[in-house]
């Protein structure tokens, strides 16, 4: 295994970069979509229940099925990274809508009432008060979404774009357990680093929570 790794550092780094790109760009896009959707869901009990039901259902669709269906629906070419990134973004949205709702509802009513009473218009209040105060709960949701996205990218190897997942398939095909183990470990390390970075971002964005 070490011998293989020593000969293939370059490959592992290249695949790691690709892996992060495939995993995290969809998380970012998914978050940006989930925030307004989550806000809409907080506006009525009915919308909230409907959204939770619909996104719960979407999250339960097997990833492989989604990855295969996307090119058919979008008309993309067979090896286009979009085929993998769209499903990952969809999963992120499905996961994060609930987090956004929880995050927005974690803002105390008297803080929100005070903001309105001081003359904030709704949109400005959202960005100046509700959203920054939601960061701790949002980051918690984002950590789950990012880590699960990183682990899901490997599935893409089955359609030829899996970042480190390529090492799994190659290793399995060549019955070379070392390559497979390197792929698994590298994927775990990426997840761990991403998680730590998100925790740090959360800390930097919320100095008031540690006083």
């Amino acid at each position, binding site marked *: 295994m070490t011998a293989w790794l020593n000969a293939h550092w370059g490959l592992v780094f290249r695949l790691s970069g690709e892996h992060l790109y495939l995993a995290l760009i969809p998380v970012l896009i998914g978050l940006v979509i989930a925030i307004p959707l989550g806000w809409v869901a907080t506006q009525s009990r009915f919308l909230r229940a409907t959204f939770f039901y619909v996104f719960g259902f979407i999250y339960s669709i097997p990833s492989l099925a989604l990855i295969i269906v996307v090119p058919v629906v979008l008309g993309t070419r067979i090896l286009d990274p979009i085929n993998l990134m769209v499903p990952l973004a969809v999963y992120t949205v499905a996961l994060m809508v609930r987090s956004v709702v929880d995050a927005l509802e974690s803002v105390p009513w*008297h803080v929100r009432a005070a903001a309105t009473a*001081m003359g904030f218009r709704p949109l400005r209040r959202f960005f100046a008060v509700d959203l920054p105060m939601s960061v701790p709960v949002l980051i918690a949701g984002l950590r789950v979404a990012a880590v699960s996205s990183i682990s899901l990218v490997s599935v893409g190897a089955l359609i030829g774009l899996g970042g480190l997942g390529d090492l799994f398939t190659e290793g399995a095909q060549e019955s070379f357990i070392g390559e497979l183990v390197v792929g698994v470990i590298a994927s775990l390390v990426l997840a761990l680093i991403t998680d730590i970075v998100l925790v740090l971002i959360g800390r930097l964005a919320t100095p008031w929570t540690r006083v």
Partner: protein
Amino acid sequence: MSQVGSCEPAAAGEWPSRPGGSRVIEFQAVTKQYPDGTIAVNKLDLTIEAGRITVFVGPSGCGKTTSLRMINRMIDPTGGRILIDGKDIMKSDPPVLRRGIGYVIQQAGLFPHRTVLDNVATVPVLTGQSRRAARARAAELLETVGLPAGMASRYPAQLSGGQQQRVGVARALAADPPVLLMDEPFSAVDPIVREGLQEELLRLQAELAKTIVFVTHDIDEAIKLGDKVAVLRTGGVLAQFDPPAALLARPVDDFVASFVGRDRGYRALGFLAAAGLTLGELSLVPLGSTAANTKAALADGWAVVVDEARHPLGWLNADRLATVDGAAAVTEELLIRGGSLYTVDANAGITAGSLRSALDAALSSPAALGIAVDSDGAVLGSVDAADVLSALAKARTSGEIPI
């Protein structure tokens, strides 16, 4: 503190500034009925005087908070009109209207993610002032409400409840709005801190003369702070709207009488000046005198021990002096603690100079004589409960008490 009046209030609201900077608020047959049929406020008619404190008080479900929130359109009425200086508030854009009306909420409602200084600077920034100018103004206001400058860079969670509420008041004053709405602002702090905040509010109001609408469920707070008090009953009906002294002296019905409370006769004394009260003699002994000299100085069996500035420290009688040697000096440990003090100067505090504080001093004293002090706390003389009662009788016959 004079800066408070000198910034530009016109930037905050949509009304032009007016000398005194305060406004009349009129409720005309204002009703709030919810879709389920519940009536929160029922045909409320009242005029809130400019530059005074008007308190809405009543049991829960009486519509006091709803009435308050209709003034800045947090809630819109379903009937009637609310006018501010003759202008129907329904014709104003709510956010613009609100920037011209200070709002202090229960638990302060501070933004936990912003520093104290930025919390106070919120409304000036909303109205388009530069962040730097708004912060400079905010720093002045922290001083006005009695917070040290070192607090400016802290987050709200680092402050005590009382300090947070002061920041809440500073934030509401930041754009120098002529109207201030206070929604049970002091109910979440402990009684001693609450008393300090109430005194502070009265002190600020004496300088600023805002039109303040204050909501509370605490009748004592209403009586202490209100120039006028509106007592509301469940279902949002106005029961009585009067100055506190009149409310205590002649409640219109059983509901108001029971809401105002059992010892209202005693509390009404707080509104009667004790100016006519003659003070009696007291035997004063400096701390450190010998027990024998103190014993010789007892008058009617008691002497008051004072420090160099004539501040009363406590009482001594023959029994207590018998426990020490005649040549021994009188120490603080030996003293019998005294009762409340009666401050003669009426400007020294909320109940200072009133018959209530004179009577309480007499009743709470171990010697059955109250100690009267000047505004520096130095002894002036004694107060006798019987004298207080005859002063009360005199006030009755001269018509000073509303009947």
